[in-house]
């Protein structure tokens, strides 16, 4: 009898200490993209400032490949102890598993919280005749099949385009120029190889500032604090928004306590003025959202994308 009590006590002590002591070693943050990309930068900034709020450091690892799924898989199959995190946004993680016919979906991972927002902007070259989004759509309707719109197939920019076509109720006939990656699309525009595209604001900003590119609309639900005079698509009468929200995921089955500790730490770090300053310098906006909101946002996004995929027959 005594033995059982001792064993039970020992177990309790161990169990509670395991949770109480989280984190005991460094936490790996998996970024499914290459270093220097926008996910990477926001993660590194946050990870660096996190040192004040968590006793153990966040270590960033870049695991690229397979449209970000390599990284996702790593976290999917990790031990559910809260030491492996994924940094992703819905435009990618909600879509990629469907398109690649993978055996998992975004909700096979455990969401922790949303952390950072970046803006998506619709841009045109500086000498383009389009002054706002309306001009673009008019031109497309007037001369279908001549305007060159650059997208990454099955990526966020593609879905933005499809969503716009949906909401306008018009089949926007354009020349779709495939260009994977924000940078590639900007380069293609600078080189005179495309007329309009959507990229993250951070990627476009240096060129907007230098005057080579003009923004015609923000694809967010509200105006960006970095470009206050650029109207959103909604303001211009097109009911399309894409909020580029980066969220943190971990492995399913991670104990709730661990998740709470993480979420709390993220919440604190997002309120930290230093973090805010560093993020805003790179055109990111701190935007903490708790688990329920995160799940809601992702579910909505996933539903939208799935319907777009079905409607436009993106996969058979």
């Amino acid at each position: 009898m005594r033995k059982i009590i001792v064993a039970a006590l020992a177990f309790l002590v161990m169990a509670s200490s395991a949770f109480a002591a989280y984190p005991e070693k460094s936490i790996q943050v998996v970024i499914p993209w290459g270093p220097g990309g926008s996910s990477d930068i926001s993660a590194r900034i946050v990870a660096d400032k996190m040192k004040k709020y968590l006793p153990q450091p966040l270590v960033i690892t870049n695991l690229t490949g397979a449209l970000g799924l390599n990284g996702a898989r790593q976290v999917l199959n990790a031990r559910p102890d809260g030491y492996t995190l994924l940094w992703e946004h819905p435009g990618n993680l909600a879509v990629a598993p469907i398109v690649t016919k993978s055996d998992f979906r975004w909700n096979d991972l455990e969401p922790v919280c949303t952390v950072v927002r970046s803006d998506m902007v619709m841009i045109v070259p500086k000498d383009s005749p389009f002054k706002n989004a309306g001009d673009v759509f008019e031109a497309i309707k007037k001369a279908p099949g001549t305007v060159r719109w650059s997208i990454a197939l099955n990526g966020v920019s593609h879905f933005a385009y499809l969503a716009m076509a949906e909401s306008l109720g018009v089949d926007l006939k354009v020349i779709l120029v495939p260009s994977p990656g924000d940078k590639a699309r900007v380069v293609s525009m600078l080189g005179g190889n495309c007329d309009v595209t959507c990229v993250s604001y951070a990627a476009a900003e240096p060129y907007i500032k230098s005057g080579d590119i003009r923004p015609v609309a923000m694809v967010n639900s509200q105006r960006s604090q970095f470009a206050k005079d650029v109207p959103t698509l909604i303001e211009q009468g097109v009911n399309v928004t894409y909020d580029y929200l980066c969220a943190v995921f971990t492995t399913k089955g991670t104990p709730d306590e661990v998740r709470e500790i993480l979420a709390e730490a993220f919440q604190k770090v997002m309120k930290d003025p230093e973090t805010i300053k560093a993020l805003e310098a790179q055109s990111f906006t701190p935007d903490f959202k708790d688990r329920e909101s995160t799940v809601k946002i992702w579910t909505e996004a996933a539903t939208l994308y799935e319907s777009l995929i079905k409607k436009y027959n993106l996969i058979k």
Partner: protein
Amino acid sequence: MAIRNKKDFFAGILLLVFSGVMYRSSYSISSGLDFALGPTFFPRILLICVALGAMFLILVNIGFQQAARPAAEPLDKKTFFYRFCLVALTLAYIMVIPVLGYATATLLFLMPSMLLMGERTLKNCTQYAIIAVAITFGLQYIFSDLLNLFLP
């Protein structure tokens, strides 16, 4: 009918079979969006090119006269043995790394392969042992501590 160059001939056949098989499997690529020629265009064209090249190789090597035989290389049994052993050892090494972890696997690999390839004198054996240990841990230090890379 004679085959001029056996190796080329069989290589050609192998390539032909390969391109055929791959072409078949390209039908399982879902091309929902046949955008700009679709995902199957490029690989298929390449496979066709490979097949054409393979056929060329085969045809060139089927002659109706006995052409001068290129001197056959003497297949040195010993070399073959060494090569086979090294390949097998490497294969075993790779298979074992995830199971035993980097350090153990590397040690287990380095020692036998050095012994295999070198002179087996006592002095050399100790030399090998020391080097094996040094390299294993040296690399481990460089990779995981200096460069912060993950080792299995």
